[in-house]
């Protein structure tokens, strides 16, 4: 079924959404080979061409495939948590057709052979498109810069030290400055090193009550303000991942207005849950940065609706059972998030009155722009990376149905709307459910 011998697929009766052009209308779309050939309101006049495979979308949304800028694949090194095959299956089931994998693997993605390895594994897997991020500093130690130019030539899409912060201000300044030579994007998860050291949850009354060392809000704000000051001085492109605080958004907004090339993103758990999810040492709620107070959660939620946060990433951080079945302080950080990216984010549309096109923008067009990719949009001759979603299908999230190797999701039995019906990568149907027959 997965091989389409006709080489052409005609999607009829679709609600086409393309945030890049602002299109949101019923119509059809034709793909030929690996690319989009045509699309529009009256493309087929409700009848597919004879020589194409027809897929009746039944009025469901057909939009660009999602692009996730923050995935931890765990391969190489921790294949017992996740590998490229399982992550790919998980991503495709979540409607994600492209992803950036974080370099905090073992070994770290800081050399050309590791990039080559990931590219090779991605080719073998032949599923989701994988764009490796290389580390900013060797072995993510925050000391020596990596060979950014060579790594980019080999295929590094951007540079990031993943969840680790470069605590040495001079190294960070040099990284931003040096990256400019290659127009490289620097991506950081901002959290002051010393203030967050040993911390395991949001600092405050609840952490005191549970007897856990906290990570204060100010750790995030300080780091963002430092890096923005540096960026002001050096120029270059900077992206902040995992924004969790109200003040961080204010700082970034100000910098954007001042003309700095800065963008930011957050993940579904940061606008859906607050620190109360930790409850009594629930290790599934241990994430880095930590879940904050309700006030911050709301602020993140509203900032997405007000377009102050550019992108939603999955922050997919699979952890096996043994890494979570430990006392809270010893347990690993992370939530598996590829498959819940859309269902959880849809709350913004249903309860936050965010337009569907604006929501899809944050997981397709915006990340494509950030990464300079020729996907994430409906455009003739662009790769046919597409997703069909039924946003009204409500079902409970079931962990056992998740395709990720690790099922450390906090959203078990969560009543979520939205179901991915079909995912297409380079014109191939790589994921589909029984709802759509063809």
């Amino acid at each position, binding site marked *: 079924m997965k091989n389409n011998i006709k080489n052409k697929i005609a999607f009829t009766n679709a609600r086409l959404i393309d945030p890049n052009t602002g299109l949101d209308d019923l119509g059809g779309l034709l793909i030929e080979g690996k690319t989009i050939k045509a699309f529009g309101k009256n493309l087929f006049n409700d009848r597919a061409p004879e020589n194409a495979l027809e897929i009746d979308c039944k009025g469901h949304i057909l939009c660009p495939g999602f692009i996730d800028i923050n995935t931890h694949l765990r391969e190489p090194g921790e294949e017992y948590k996740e590998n490229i095959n399982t992550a790919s299956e998980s991503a495709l089931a979540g409607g994600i057709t492209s992803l950036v994998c974080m370099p905090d693997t073992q070994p770290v993605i800081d050399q050309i052979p590791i990039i080559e390895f990931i590219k090779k594994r991605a080719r073998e897997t032949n599923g989701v498109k994988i764009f490796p991020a290389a580390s900013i500093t060797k072995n993510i130690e925050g000391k020596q810069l990596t060979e950014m130019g060579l790594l980019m030539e080999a295929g590094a899409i951007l540079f990031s030290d993943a969840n680790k912060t470069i605590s040495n201000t001079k190294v960070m300044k040099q990284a931003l400055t040096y990256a400019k030579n290659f127009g490289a994007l620097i991506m950081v998860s901002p959290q002051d090193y010393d203030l967050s050291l040993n911390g395991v949850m949001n*600092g*405050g*009354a*609840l*952490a*005191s*009550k*549970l*007897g*856990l*060392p*906290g990570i204060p809000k100010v750790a995030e704000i300080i780091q963002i303000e430092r890096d923005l000051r540096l960026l002001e001085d050096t120029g270059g492109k900077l992206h902040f991942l995992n924004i969790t605080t109200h003040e961080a958004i204010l700082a970034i907004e100000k910098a954007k207005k001042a003309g700095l090339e800065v963008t930011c993103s957050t993940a579904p758990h940061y606008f859906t849950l607050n620190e109360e999810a930790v409850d*009594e*040492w629930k290790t599934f709620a241990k994430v880095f940065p930590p879940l904050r107070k309700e006030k911050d959660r709301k602020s993140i939620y509203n900032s997405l609706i007000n377009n102050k946060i550019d992108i939603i990433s999955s922050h997919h951080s699979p952890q096996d059972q*043994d890494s979570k*079945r*430990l*006392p*809270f*302080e*010893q347990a690993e950080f992370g939530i598996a998030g590829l498959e819940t990216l859309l269902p959880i984010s849809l709350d913004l549309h249903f309860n936050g009155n965010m337009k569907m096109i604006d929501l899809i923008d944050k997981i397709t067009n915006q990340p494509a722009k950030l990464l300079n990719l020729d996907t994430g949009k409906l455009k003739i001759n662009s790769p046919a990376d597409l997703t069909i979603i039924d946003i009204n299908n409500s079902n409970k999230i079931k962990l056992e149905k998740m395709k990720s190797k690790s099922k450390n999701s906090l959203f078990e039995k969560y009543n979520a709307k939205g179901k991915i019906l079909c995912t297409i990568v380079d014109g191939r149907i790589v994921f589909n459910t029984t709802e759509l027959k063809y």
Partner: protein
Amino acid sequence: MHALDKWIKEKSSSRKKLAQTLNISTASLSRYLTGDRIPKQSIMQKIIKVTDGNINPSNFYNINPTNKITNKYNPDHLLGIEGLKPSEISSLLDRADEIINENRLEPIINHKFKGRTLVNLFFEDSTRTKTSFELAAKRLGMDVINMQIATSSIRKGESLLDTAMTLNAMKPDILVIRHSLSGTPHLLANKINCAVINAGDGQHEHPTQALLDALAIRRRKNKIKGLEIAICGDIAHSRVARSNIILLITMGAKVKVIAPTTLMPQGLDEYGAKIYTNMEEGLKNTDIVMILRLQLERMQGSYIPSAKEYFKFYGLDRNKLSFAKKNALVMHPGPINRGVEIDSELADDINRTLILEQVELGVAIRMSVIEHLINNLDNKKHNNINEK
């Protein structure tokens, strides 16, 4: 009716009078009568003598406890003070009080829980708490296993939960656990069948310490409600402080917390404690001064600059104590850093401090906790059988 009760009736006496004659408490006597306990030999001889041989030892054996013990303490474990009701705390304290009244005469071994097992699982060094639990269990006739963590499988890489499951398979009745990480006893309690007692977890809680402190206060001041109690020292890193603050506020005391700002945790006011950074101010009108141990590692680095400075402003001496009420008492969970958090000579003043008394009461409170938990365990089994 127990033969001894019949004898009392015939003689138109009362349990109270008989208890006085035997020089035991009425509570003890009634326990003999319900079969919960068997009089030890010296008492037994007295009973035979008083009743002119009408009552003999055989009257005390093979009595099925008639009235099922009804606990006011309902939880299956003791994981923390938080969430306990005042009546539950009182029940634990009342029983400890009775135990003291019996113990103080001379140590007796009560075979009530013969054959039952208590496991001491200590992942942190401890002298007083571990010994105290061991002694408490032994006085109840229990078998005690002390897990030496340094030599156990934990060092061989066995996971905490696997160790707990292994212990659980040996079917102990009580597992006492101390761990340097908060929430560990709760994690174990979810996975195993026996009753878990938290003997201190990270910076979270140390419930039996708070209970024994409350007992010490109640015995000296005859109440807890309405007392003004100051807790001074490293509040931020102290599990003793957390348990005490919650317990004392639950029992109606006015709690004041005195510490330098770097050692004060966030959110204390949410518990209802008043916060002070100045000893003289905070100690005013205080009935009880609880001094906490300052961990040596906090004396370097960014918490406080030196022990000298700490003692000058936050160490308890007679001068600072003079700001409290005249009859104010001083408590310390031990071990003491003399000349750091408390003046050495003041620490030794038995008229003002309860430090050694606290240790003594520790055994009684732990006996009370063990009794309550085993009773709950038995009641649960009993109910399960009935349901089947």
